[in-house]
């Protein structure tokens, strides 16, 4: 037992060495691009989160004017809009390297909740804010500015190898995925309902496998609202359909769009819906079905989505806490987002630009700090 004190001391030393190693790794990586503030390291570590006004500790030498903005920008909300914000943030960071960024995409509903909890200055949504969500946010003493940033078409998809379907109407979609289609295992099962609704059937038969986003997704909400709601409400009035659920519960729901794409690609007679960007990226695996919203069959393309000819399209929104709109970093970022250059990233992310009138409305909302729902 003589040895124990010795090995105990060795243990302490080793632990200390490990902690030091950790700290060194962190230091080596963290000091990547802030070589300018050697002095700051010796000052007591204050918090980065409290957005320091631009005036503090801006070194006078060789700093360009716009680089002096610092602060932190935290964005959450829709996973559909997240890629746009990512691209914007990346380009913005190159111009303003001192601004700290954190972009997340848990979902539109989560974004509005985080806003009501006062957690974020900017949040995205792939649908317009609901009245109940707006009330929750206002109840927390927060006023928001509403901006439209782009348009996303929702693509109805099947396997690339499926030749038996080219175009579906809203009635067809309801008879295949609406609440009354619960239990339909094949396309032929939907034929009698389809005929009753005056759809384009009968369908060629095949095993009906449905892959689509789950309830937490803005894509799910928007698809119901645009494609299913009219037919569904009509059926509810006639007493045929459940008034609480528009979509059949027995389909393969996933929050991961790649899972949906793989499911669609792996089943010849599959059917589903995803955002246009995902479907467009995967044209080798899935077929983008034309949709008839009452004015004939239209294929989803950036042009038909922007012109609203393609019937299933939705606006993408960004919301800003009005009280934080004057923060220099946030002001510069939103200015950039609404600039002509910023709007290019909407297209880069796979979406479609707003028409000029909507963009103008967004810009004036921002310029005048107009709060509340404006669209």
């Amino acid at each position: 037992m003589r040895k124990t004190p010795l090995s105990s001391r060795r243990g302490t030393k080793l632990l200390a060495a490990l902690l030091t190693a950790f700290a060194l790794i962190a230091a080596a990586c963290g000091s990547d691009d802030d070589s300018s503030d050697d002095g700051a390291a010796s000052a007591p570590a204050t918090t980065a989160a409290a957005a320091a006004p631009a005036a503090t500790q801006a070194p006078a030498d060789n700093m360009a004017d716009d680089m002096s903005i610092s602060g932190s920008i935290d964005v959450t909300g829709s996973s559909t809009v997240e890629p746009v914000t990512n691209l914007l943030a990346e380009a913005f960071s190159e111009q303003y390297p001192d601004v700290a960024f954190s972009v997340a995409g848990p979902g539109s509903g989560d974004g509005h909740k985080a806003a009501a909890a006062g957690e974020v200055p900017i949040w995205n949504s792939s649908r317009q804010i609901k009245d109940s969500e707006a009330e929750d946010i206002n109840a927390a003493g927060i006023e928001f500015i509403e901006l439209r940033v782009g348009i996303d078409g929702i693509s109805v998809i099947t396997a690339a190898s499926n030749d038996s379907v080219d175009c579906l109407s809203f009635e067809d979609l309801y008879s295949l995925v609406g609440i009354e289609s619960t239990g339909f295992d094949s396309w032929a099962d939907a034929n009698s309902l389809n005929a009753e609704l005056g759809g384009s059937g009968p369908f060629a038969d095949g095993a009906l496998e449905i892959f689509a986003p789950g309830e937490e997704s803005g894509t799910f909400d928007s698809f119901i609202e645009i494609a299913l709601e009219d037919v569904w409400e009509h059926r509810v009035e006639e007493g045929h359909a459940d008034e609480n659920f528009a979509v059949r519960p027995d389909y393969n729901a996933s929050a991961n769009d790649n899972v949906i794409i793989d499911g669609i690609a792996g089943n010849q007679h599959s059917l589903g819906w995803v955002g246009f960007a995902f479907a467009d990226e995967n044209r080798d695996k899935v077929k983008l079905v034309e949709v008839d919203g009452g004015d004939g069959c239209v294929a989803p393309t950036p042009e038909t989505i922007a012109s609203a000819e393609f019937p299933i399209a939705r606006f993408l929104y960004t919301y800003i806490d009005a009280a934080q709109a004057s923060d220099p970093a946030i002001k510069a970022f939103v200015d950039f987002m609404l600039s002509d250059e910023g709007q290019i990233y909407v297209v880069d992310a796979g979406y479609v630009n707003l028409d000029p009138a909507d963009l103008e409305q967004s810009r004036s909302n921002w310029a005048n700090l107009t709060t509340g729902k404006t669209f």
Partner: protein
Amino acid sequence: MSVLTTPAGIATGAADALRRRPGADVAGSAFKWLLIGATVFATGFLAVLLAVMIVDGWEVLSGNLWHFLTHGFSQRSAAEAGVWQGILGSLQVALVTGLFAVPTGVATAIYLVEYAQGSRFARIVELNIRNLAGVPSIVYGLLGLAVFVQTIDGFTKGKTVIAGGMTLAAMVLPIVVITSVEALKAVPDSLREAAYGVGATKWEVLSRQVLPAALSTILTGTVLALARALGEAAPLILVGAATGFMSFGDANVFETFTGPYTALPVLIFNFARQPGADWGVNAAAASVIILVLVLAVNGLAIYLRNRFEKQW
């Protein structure tokens, strides 16, 4: 053969057993092959998983590894995106987790074993801690969001490395306590009694004899708990790790602990949901990297065990 077993009798018996052997012990050899099968299945499963990840991620691992390791997330293209922020974030979170979970967990274990041993209170606490070890990690994420992010945001500064680390600390705390309790219980009582016998105080017994003796097992358990924390994505996403683009801005090393962060598993989640097959390559490559990281940590655990292990 006489009743009293003679050496000759034993020899005969042994010879009988030898003669009986082929085919006689069917259950025994079946059991052995069952065990071999289970082992092959378990390791084979792991090998296939590893092989698939390496093959899927090969494009990045072979050609683009340095860029991948030294660049942050980029939405522009899969080829531009990297994981260094995730590696850094994971190490920072693990550090904070360790700082909170290890002292608290080990102290709890010392109290339970050395001070409250056998009491009803100690048994109830220990039972609850064992149950806590089975709670899904997402529940700890919810706890972290409510407590560390929202309630004590004065200390954690909201959705920061500190809050993430404390959330994972809460998650691995039961594991640290349980392994430390077992380590302390494994120290023979004769050691304590001998020390008391030569007049040592309780403090001397604990600090000079019991803790050093249990150190290797405690360290091993602790490092394994940290390895588990390294692999967690779900609780971190809940408590605000960035899934998309992030940057530190002008934060210095210390300020990065109270600023935005991400972690390797969170990046894998992000890569896996991006459109396009080349992002899948990134996800696979990042998975290999986190596996290497976890293996390194486990290797450290084995090294520590061998370094400090005591034989009785």
